[in-house]
């Protein structure tokens, strides 16, 4: 229980609900009802059923033999890339769409960066026949054209956001503004463990299926449900939260989050929030932020649109502060090499985001008998253009 949220929505000093009064009624409703709803037998059976038959869970835990040989240790990949729509994002949107239904909401809004969360949201809205509006930075709209088309084909309206740097942070601002303007019938499906309480806890719970499955799969394959370490990439931190969740109190399991260093943590072009950031309030949570001395949020950079965020979920800020998890950062260059390595050693093309976790294998000491579990959060299909341009195939 040491790493769970408290009743005020805090993980240690991080979290809370720093919302304007205009959002109070909606957040209060969520806060008062989410535990009761997601704990109900009816919800659990619907959620589990959809995870199984629609998402395709459990996702395999795959022993990556040739990659293990390369690094002289044991490496397992949790294959979230094999989920429907190609990433872990659907675990959360399934949970939230069921919750929105129980709350009687008719309209769904979401923000998206790479478009993976947007696609996962548009998908569940199609599944449930609910209206869907996705906010996306205008720059990301042009960078991630295939996902924009997918969302539209799924019936969602994609609204390009022209404010700020026209990326994920700005899309999140605009989604919050939409919610302020539509307080009655709308549910906001946040795509990561960020935003005001109860979102970080709620999204972590929906993603926690990842580590729950890891435990039983590890027991079956290695004879112990506890690995030596778990590694995951961290943007807002939802796939990492899901991968860490059931290991948080097993203190002997090393937890490693990997942020996007971009062009390097000592350059201006980075998204490694925990390395370069400081505490502050953004998107209604107190957490670690990239900001200048005046408290203005600075623009992050990463080759991966899904990690291009100047904040981090409050859970991770707390895990960092307490030392329960270790956080590393991988550069664009290192990540691209890891993409190629996994592709040619295992025949799996990972998402740019997920490859940050792979890149950490070059940065840590591993013993031959160590059991390393990497959360492969998504598939590289969406990144093919970047890969083809970079590698020149």
């Amino acid at each position, binding site marked *: 229980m040491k790493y769970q949220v408290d009743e*005020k929505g805090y993980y240690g000093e991080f979290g*809370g*609900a*720093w*919302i*304007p*009064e*205009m959002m*109070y*009624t909606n957040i209060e409703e969520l806060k008062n009802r989410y535990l009761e709803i997601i704990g109900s037998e009816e919800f659990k059976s619907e959620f589990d059923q959809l995870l199984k038959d629609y998402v395709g869970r459990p996702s395999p835990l795959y022993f990556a033999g040739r990659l293990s040989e390369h690094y002289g240790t044991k490496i397992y990949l949790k294959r979230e890339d094999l989920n429907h729509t190609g990433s872990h994002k659907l675990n959360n949107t399934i949970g939230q769409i069921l919750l929105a239904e129980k709350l009687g909401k008719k309209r769904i809004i979401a923000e998206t960066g790479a478009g993976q969360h947007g696609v996962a949201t548009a998908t569940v809205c199609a599944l449930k026949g609910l209206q869907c509006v996705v906010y996306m930075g205008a720059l990301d709209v042009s960078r991630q054209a295939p996902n924009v088309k997918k969302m539209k084909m799924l019936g969602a309206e994609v609204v390009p956001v022209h*404010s*700020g740097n026209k990326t994920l*942070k700005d899309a999140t*601002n605009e989604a*919050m*503004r939409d919610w*302020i*303007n*539509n*307080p*009655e019938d709308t549910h906001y499906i946040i795509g990561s463990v960020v935003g005001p309480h109860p979102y970080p806890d709620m999204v972590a719970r929906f993603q926690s299926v990842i580590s729950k499955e890891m435990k039983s799969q590890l027991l079956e394959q290695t004879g112990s449900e506890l690995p030596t370490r778990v590694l995951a990439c961290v943007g807002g931190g939802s796939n990492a939260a899901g991968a860490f969740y059931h290991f948080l109190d097993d203190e002997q399991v090393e937890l490693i989050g990997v942020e996007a260093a971009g062009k390097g943590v000592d350059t201006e072009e980075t998204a490694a929030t925990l390395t370069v950031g400081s505490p*502050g*309030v*953004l*998107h*209604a949570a107190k957490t670690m*932020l990239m*900001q200048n*001395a*005046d*408290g*203005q*949020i600075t623009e992050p950079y990463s080759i991966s649109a899904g990690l291009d965020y100047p904040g981090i979920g409050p859970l991770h800020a707390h895990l960092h502060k307490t030392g329960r998890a270790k956080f590393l950062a991988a550069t664009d260059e290192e990540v691209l090499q890891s993409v190629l390595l996994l592709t040619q050693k295992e025949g799996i093309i990972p998402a740019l985001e997920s490859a940050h976790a792979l890149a950490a294998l070059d940065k840590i000491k591993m013993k031959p008998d160590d059991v390393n579990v990497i959360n492969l959060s998504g598939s590289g299909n969406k990144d093919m253009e970047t890969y083809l341009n970079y590698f020149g195939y």
Partner: protein
Amino acid sequence: MNRINKLFETKKQNILSVYFTAGFPNLNDTVEIIQELEKNGVDLIEIGIPFSDPTADGPTIQKSSETALKNGMNLNLLFEQLKDIRKSVNIPLILMGYINPVYQYGIDRFCEKCAEIGIDGTILPDLPLDEFESHYKAFYDKNNLHNILLITPQTSEARIRQIDEISGGFIYMVSSASTTGAGKKVEDFHQDYFERIQNMQLKNPRLIGFGISDRATFGNACKYANGAIIGSAFVNAVSSSTDLKTGIKVFVENIIQPD
């Protein structure tokens, strides 16, 4: 006595409060805008501290904030610009903005600085009631500052009572469920919400804001509260006027001059 309280003691109706973004349209317009607003009969001024991510604001204040930041505005500079403001200006002054720049400045230092300059209160929409009460209020009280809290059409009666209890200056009634922005008409406002709040007999005076932009919407709001707040419409006016003094004069006259 805090100037906000003094104002509401002497004037009960048709109070006009105007918001502008510090550092917009030009970095050094701050003092002139304040002086001109007072000269033309405005009762209270909200000085906007620009923030990179103003989630409660519509397009007009988003843009003015962005420009102000590009112009180089920050909290240190704003305090520097305002340091002699009480030599020329008597009406209450409120700082309005988001919590993060204030948090980085340090809440104790911030409150002391406000008191030193002669600022009377703040409006920080993303500083919620419970955080304010448990971690901030003591600093406000020590420096004779009011933190103005918001209510909306969705705020429950119990919560309005709680906000009324803790408020000291006035209550900011958000006109309808929305971000800031001009362009609303009288028909867009829920008169039943205005009436419901009016009938609650709150101990604090009330100003209505968000979407108040002209004589008609101002006049309507004044029927249900002690006055109203104009923000985006004024920001639009100063951004399009070639001469600041004339622009401000014409704008304020259009709102408050008797027919």
